[in-house]
């Protein structure tokens, strides 16, 4: 980005304008070498009363074909509409190729090209480096402190490798339930007419509780210029210093195909790195899913096969010489009552677990 213009330039929020197109099909899928990590998601764009929505498509037939002439049928999941999952034990095999086939209820058919699963490449180190000015916050108008999450790995020589990283932030939670206009009783929020709907009460956890927040900013890299080298301190994410509470960071290093790399890189440029005076121009996100009967139909999506390795770093933030940015909401515990103990809530819900995760001391 031309730098000097920061002196006079400014970036202002602007009311988003769209030129909506409906009936655009979005198909994203991935088969993994680990059980329980393969899925396909189907959505379709709709314009509803002037608003743009993506509608989950839950009544399609989805199968993944293999070069071993086997077929795995992915079934729609009832409580996560639009997502299709295979049998629990399904996992991709390194030497096979995979192709996605989708048939919608109206008969439209879609295919991906064939994808093979790249071999996994392990990480040698996951680290977190504190930086008092980890990034510039436009909202705050200043640099904010935080940790850069970095990885080291040895890139295999004599082969083209493509990487993508995601990471999960694990926190130990104190609050396990929040009730609005209600009180937590008998394992649920019970309406209390005496409380305004805006009133919030938080309830402590009755057991250890860990939350898992997975982040992916589509960070990718090809090994074109690092082939065969030990790569050090590749930044794969940023954790702002919002609190002194410790966190565990679990980084996943995915090895992906060249096509998936290109798709993810463009998605990153369009969705994350789109700012700046000379950012990459907007362009169509062309994936590898198409309608074999109508190549002109616009389908957005990618079906790929990937491998994954993980690494962890535990960050104790108690002694950091900086002021935390703040966690957001201040806990609002229900006031003690004379005749009643305030109940505590169990550790429940998606992305939460009472079990201490690997890597947590």
């Amino acid at each position: 980005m031309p730098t000097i213009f920061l002196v006079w330039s400014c970036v202002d929020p602007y009311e988003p304008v769209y030129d909506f197109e409906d009936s655009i099909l979005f198909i994203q899928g991935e088969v993994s070498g680990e059980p329980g990590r393969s899925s396909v998601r189907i959505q379709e764009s709709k314009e509803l009363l002037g608003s743009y929505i993506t509608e989950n498509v839950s009544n399609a037939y989805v199968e993944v074909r293999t070069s071993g002439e086997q077929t795995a049928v992915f079934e729609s999941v009832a409580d996560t509409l639009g997502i299709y999952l295979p049998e629990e034990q399904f996992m991709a095999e390194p030497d096979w190729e995979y192709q996605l086939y989708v048939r919608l209820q109206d008969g439209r058919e879609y295919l991906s090209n064939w994808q093979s699963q790249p071999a996994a490449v392990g990480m040698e180190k996951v680290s977190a480096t504190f930086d008092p000015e980890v990034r510039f916050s436009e909202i705050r108008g200043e640099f904010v402190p935080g940790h850069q999450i970095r990885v080291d790995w040895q890139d295999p020589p004599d082969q083209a490798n493509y990487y993508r990283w995601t990471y999960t932030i694990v926190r130990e939670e104190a609050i396990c339930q929040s009730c609005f206009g209600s009180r937590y009783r008998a394992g649920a929020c019970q309406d209390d007419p005496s409380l305004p709907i805006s009133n919030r009460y938080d309830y402590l956890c009755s057991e250890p509780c860990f939350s898992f927040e997975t982040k992916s900013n589509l960070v990718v890299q090809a090994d074109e210029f690092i082939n065969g080298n030990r790569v050090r301190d590749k930044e794969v994410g940023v954790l702002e210093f919002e609190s002194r509470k410790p966190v565990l960071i679990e980084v996943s290093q995915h090895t992906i195909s060249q096509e998936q790399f290109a798709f993810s890189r463009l998605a990153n440029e369009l969705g994350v790195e789109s700012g700046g005076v000379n950012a990459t121009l907007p362009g169509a996100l062309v994936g590898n899913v198409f309608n074999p009967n109508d190549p002109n139909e616009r389908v957005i999506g990618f079906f790929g096969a990937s491998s994954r390795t993980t690494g962890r770093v535990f960050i104790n933030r108690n002694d950091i010489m900086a002021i935390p940015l703040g966690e957001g909401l201040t806990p609002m515990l229900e006031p003690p009552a004379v005749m009643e103990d305030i109940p505590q809530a169990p550790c429940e819900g998606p992305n939460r677990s009472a079990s201490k995760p690997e890597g947590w001391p």
Partner: protein
Amino acid sequence: MWSKILLILCWVYQGAELFGQSSDVTVIVLDGEGNDPLPLATVLITPGDHGEITDEQGRTTFTLEKGSYNVTANFLGYREVSMDLEVVGDTTIQLSLMPEGEILQTIEVVGNNVSDRIKRPILGVQRLNEQQLKELPAVMGETDVLKGLQLLAGVSSAGEASNGISVRGGSIDQNLVLMDNVPIFNPTHLFGLFSVFPTDGVQSAELYQGNIPARFGGRVASVLDVQIKSPNADKLHLTGGVGLVSSRLSIETPIVKDKLYVFAAARASFNDFWFDLIQKLKDTKANFGDGVIKFRYQPTGKHIFNFTGFYSKDYYQINLINRFAGFTADKNIYDYKTLNLSFDWNYRIDNTSYIQTVISKAGYDPQIRLPQPLTGEEAIFSSGIDLYDVSTIWNKQQDSSLTYQVGLQLNYYRNAPGDLDPGNTGDINPFSLPEERAAETSVFSDVTWSPSPQWSFSFGLRYAHYFQLGPFTVRRYNEEESRSNGSVISEEEYGSGKVIKSFGGLEPRLGMRWGTEKTALKFAYALNRQYLQNIFNSTTPLPTSRWKTSDVHIRPQKSHLLSAGIQSQVSQNFEMGTEVYGRLIDGLLEYRPGADFFLKKFVETDLLQGDGRTYGIELNFRKHQGKNTGWINYSYSRSFIKIQNDRVNDQINEGAWYPSNFDQPHQLNAVYTLNDGAHHSLSLNFTLSSGRPYTVPNGDIKIDDVFVPIYFERNNGRLPTYHRLDMSWTIKNPSLKNKRWVGEWIFTVYNIYGRKNAQNIYYGPRAGSGFGEVFKNSNLGAYRISIFAAPVVSLTYQFKFS
């Protein structure tokens, strides 16, 4: 009695002295518009058939007997002037010639002699001389060629923060920018804030956007021909300025009297220390500098030699993470430089003809430095382009109605598109892209013929032949598929110097003018080809954007331009003109979605070619005399692209015409100058134009944690209307004393009312829950970038010393 005899004797003696005594008559020939000296003009004195060619000061001296003579001066492209002269002793006369010839028809926006502008048969040429440039308001106290041109009809910035101009809807790289006959690949500092042309060193700047003379080639939109001041001062002259952003100094002096002169100018910006006072700009550096030196050596009346050297360097650094091809660098660091050298020799054959031979080298070397996190070790991406040029032109003035030129030109391109030096980073491998080499040979001729005062014609013909040369690796692709790494059939190696591919063709240029004393009708046609282009998948090119020579897969661009106009003097003080034009382009470059040229060996997989068309009408109205002067011009111009192909993936916008990035239909410029002639000069200029196109999403989709905008069409939206008011106030010689040292204060304000004109609008992640009232229920945030979002105030002190 004796006194009378003495008087008679004295009278007889003096008469005898006068009779048969010689006198020196010095003739100075000037450009009638800018009062610049005209070197190599022919001066004829009759009777006696005395003929001489002027030197670079526009000066020549005759030794004549006392008596009556007729003095005639002419110069290629100017109307001949004659005057009677009674020689009674040593004398000096000035003859001012008005431009006329080589290019037909003009719309002259800046100048004073309206009558001559009507008669002058030039179309599509904008001309600014040194004085006119200084009268234009500019950013931060710097008068500037490119900023000045943007106030003229048909010329616009390609968006603030762009390093060039858009001429009649063309892209930046479709303009050939020359400084003393040598191309400048990046004509700006600070990403377009200033042009590299030295403020005190520009003698003239001519922008050919219509009928480009045949001696110019290689670009399809325009030629900007900037001439550096030719040193001719008899004594030392110093000029300079001290400003908030940059300071400058120039010197002009003789070295050997009447033989060797030098002009040198330098400018530098070292005032970035105050960036540290702003947290957002910590560790920011923004330094630039340039220098030009020009020697003129005239050993005899028949030979003039010029040498020009130009160097420019920019260095910018900001403390923001930079990412290239997966590399993460702690800082954005751009470092680029230009080094141009030219030598020209003017040889006078006789009183009506001369030969000009130019040997030059243009070089441009940008770098991106990539300091690695934690270690600070730098990897450096560098690229470079060199152009070697030899040309010779024979100029002949047959008579007052017919002039012609014949010339040859040879260009050799050496383009190094990218090297990666890992330094001591340890985990990055060195990488080098193969150089591209090409040659271009041209022969050309321009003829100007004025058979009557009403009619003038200009005929130009250029034949250029271009060769892509080895060594190089050429891929062959399956023609049934889009070009991609997966559709490669074979790769073929070509040895050093081997011709891989060649292109060529005739480029006719034609101009006509018919007119009266008050009104002129004009018409022009030009065909141009372009073999070198700048490729960039962004709104405007960066200084580090890659250059690409035409090759097996990238054919040259070819344009046909047709234009016509009328210029009229409506009263003593007012004139107006209209020009219409249309241009068709074949081989226009576009980019596949997500195209990335960084260290990419085979860029043709990311490039598409199609058709372009631009058309428009330009109106201008000006008051050119009096204390209050100014002009208003308006242009309606359109610029479209069509990328159509049998293969769906090789189309943009489904093969339909769509607006190019430089499509700004309406543009209005108004300039007002109040000049009391002695103490103050106040200029205001107002610019109003349609916003340029940008791309609006057709929806969005969440991929992992990121909402990604979905685009099917390109340039389907338009930025808000752009408008801006600038002011420049010059206080001349505040002490009001006529001294050898004369100072001026220049106070400028750019964007007086601080409008936040959008440079771009982009869609990206919403920053938490912020700006909810603006973004509403959109999954994406939209952000408007404004470059000069506040008034930019500057004060400069400039001086002259002689």
